[in-house]
């Protein structure tokens, strides 16, 4: 179903994963999806975010601050590598040989796994696109999906917490996205 995402939306997901890895986060959360969107100010979502004062650097800075305050460790996936090392599997060596045989980046361990909120945001992305009658899923649907996650009784998604910390008027984003698309 990822093939129904626009190229821009797919690139934002890849950019988000790169952010997660670069920050040493062994998970792919809504905050990383948001970083992926903010990374491309030419995209529909990126443009709306930029118009509301959200740029990649500030978003990253606030993300790191919030996660650090919440005690979420930036392990770089070391516990997973250590666990395999204890079982006699040298991940660094596997990595080296895989890079030699298949090119750099083909093997990524540990690959950040999606959090429940990030999964919910992607599911909501599909619903937003369908509700709007759009066949492809674009960055605008992704941002709408992010905004819809974790409301009411559950804990807000980290992406929403980041936007709030950036003083973004959350209620203004949806109409802005709908006007922009």
């Amino acid at each position, binding site marked *: *179903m990822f093939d129904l995402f626009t190229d821009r939306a797919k690139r934002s997901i890849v950019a988000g994963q790169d952010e997660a890895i670069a920050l040493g986060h062994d998970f792919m959360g809504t905050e990383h999806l948001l970083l992926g969107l903010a990374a491309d100010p030419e995209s529909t979502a990126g443009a709306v975010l930029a118009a509301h004062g959200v740029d990649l650097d500030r978003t990253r800075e606030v993300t790191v601050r919030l996660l650090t305050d919440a005690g979420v460790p930036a392990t770089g996936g070391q516990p997973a590598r250590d666990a395999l090392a204890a079982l006699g599997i040298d991940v660094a060596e596997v990595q080296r040989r895989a890079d030699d045989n298949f090119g750099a980046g083909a093997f990524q*361990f540990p690959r950040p*796994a999606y959090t429940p909120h990030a*999964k919910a945001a992607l*599911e909501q992305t599909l619903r937003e696109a369908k509700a709007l009658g759009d066949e492809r899923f674009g960055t605008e649907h992704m941002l709408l999906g992010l905004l819809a996650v974790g409301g009411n009784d559950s804990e807000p998604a980290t992406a929403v917490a980041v936007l709030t910390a950036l003083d973004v008027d959350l209620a203004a984003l949806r109409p802005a996205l709908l006007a922009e698309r």
Partner: protein
Amino acid sequence: MSGILDTRTACQATLTRMGVPEESADRADGGAAADLLGQVTARDPAVGLSAVVALRRLLEELERLHVDNARDQGWTWQSIATALNVSRQSVHEKHASRRKATGKES
């Protein structure tokens, strides 16, 4: 923000079809690798289960790598499925849309 850690109830089946890997990272895991040698046989469930998760994540990554390699070498989905001892449908559902999404296949 602790709510991110719980409620692992998202619709995994849908997401698996979408190419989203099974949620398995333990974001609260900050422990060192002290005395992990006996972990696959440890009586502490947390220890044994974390070893299983690490192995599963490695397995998933290796499957992805070798399915990609097989497809790049012209293998059919059926041959890959036979080699993996799974149905053609399950291997296709798991990998085809991901490969399309990343431009590895049209």
